[in-house]
């Protein structure tokens, strides 16, 4: 962690709270809510991988720890880069950086150190495939999404969303040291889930994104266009959600659960399509979070 900037008189006088940052402030930099989703989907990938029982429990726990720390580190670097727009958005203005609780240099070095440590530990404890995927996911989130796409294209979360789709693949690779069609199907499930999930949020937070100058689809192409695109992704999700059954990593219980959960996902999207208010978008956003937890839970229970 860098200490130089926060100890200089200029910075201390400019930002007196930064020197008193608590451990909780640093923890908030790791985006704990996002981290929980990463940990859960990563664990699901590890759990359903062939011969998962052969992996030593301590090594499995280490793999999940590396995933969590790496996701948190990427979140910290994202907050460092986005601190200007976070300060003007209602949803993010109370984060530690816009409030001046943590010095930006400290946040960046915190993120970088954790990134290096998590990748290094993953390679030592598990294998290079898992570590390589972890490094690539981090690079994708920080460089491709945060620095490049987020402020330049309304397709930001479509392409950038790939970074959030890596955890089950990484969990799978931690066990097998391999990338297979089955692990790619888990990647695809999150990849196609991400656009309708974020666009539902963008529909009712449109003013916030506009104020920050982030080109989200509802702001650049209008609500109707966004809702149609959400619908397309939701429909594509159905065959992808069912694919683990056909690829032989899940059974009938999963097939039925995934079918019902995805059908309801499409239904919530249809409601958004015809709703002139943003009530349905809020409901859909909430359900989309539940959906991802539920579908991966079904996958894990089915394996038991």
């Amino acid at each position: 962690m860098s200490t130089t900037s926060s100890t200089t008189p200029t910075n201390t006088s400019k930002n007196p709270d930064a020197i008193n940052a608590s451990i909780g402030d640093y923890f908030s930099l790791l985006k704990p809510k996002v981290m929980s989703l990463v940990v859960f989907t990563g664990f699901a990938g590890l759990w359903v991988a062939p011969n998962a029982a052969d992996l030593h429990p301590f090594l499995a726990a280490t793999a999940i720890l590396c995933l969590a720390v790496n996701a948190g580190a990427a979140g910290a670097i994202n907050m460092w880069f986005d601190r200007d727009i976070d300060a003007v958005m209602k949803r993010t203005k109370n984060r530690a950086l816009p409030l001046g609780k943590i010095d930006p240099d400290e946040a960046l070095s915190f993120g970088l150190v954790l990134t290096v440590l998590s990748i290094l530990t993953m390679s030592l404890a598990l294998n290079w495939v898992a570590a390589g995927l972890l490094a690539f996911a981090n690079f994708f989130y920080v460089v491709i999404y945060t620095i490049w796409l987020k402020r330049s294209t309304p397709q930001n979360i479509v392409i950038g969303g790939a970074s959030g789709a890596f955890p089950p693949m990484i969990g799978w690779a931690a066990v097998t040291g391999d990338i297979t069609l089955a692990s790619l199907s888990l990647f695809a499930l999150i990849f196609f889930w991400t656009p309708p999930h974020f666009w539902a949020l963008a529909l009712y937070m449109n003013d916030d994104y506009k104020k920050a100058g982030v080109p989200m689809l509802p702001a650049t192409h209008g609500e109707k266009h966004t809702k149609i695109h959400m619908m397309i992704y939701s429909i594509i999700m159905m065959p992808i959600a069912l694919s683990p059954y056909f690829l032989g990593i899940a059974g009938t219980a999963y097939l039925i659960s995934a079918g019902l959960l995805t059908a309801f996902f499409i239904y919530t999207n249809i409601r958004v399509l015809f709703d002139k208010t943003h009530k349905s978008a809020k409901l859909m956003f909430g359900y989309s979070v539940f959906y991802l937890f539920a579908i991966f839970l079904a996958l894990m229970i089915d394996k038991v």
Partner: protein
Amino acid sequence: MPHEELHKTKKKKNFTTLALIFAWIALIWIVTMIKVNHAG
């Protein structure tokens, strides 16, 4: 800010960092032991 006061302010953070470094060393040691035992 006087030097001593600065140390006091940063004491908690520095000890936490030190504890995390020790925890990481312990983690690597355990991982190594598991790998060594499984290699045989």
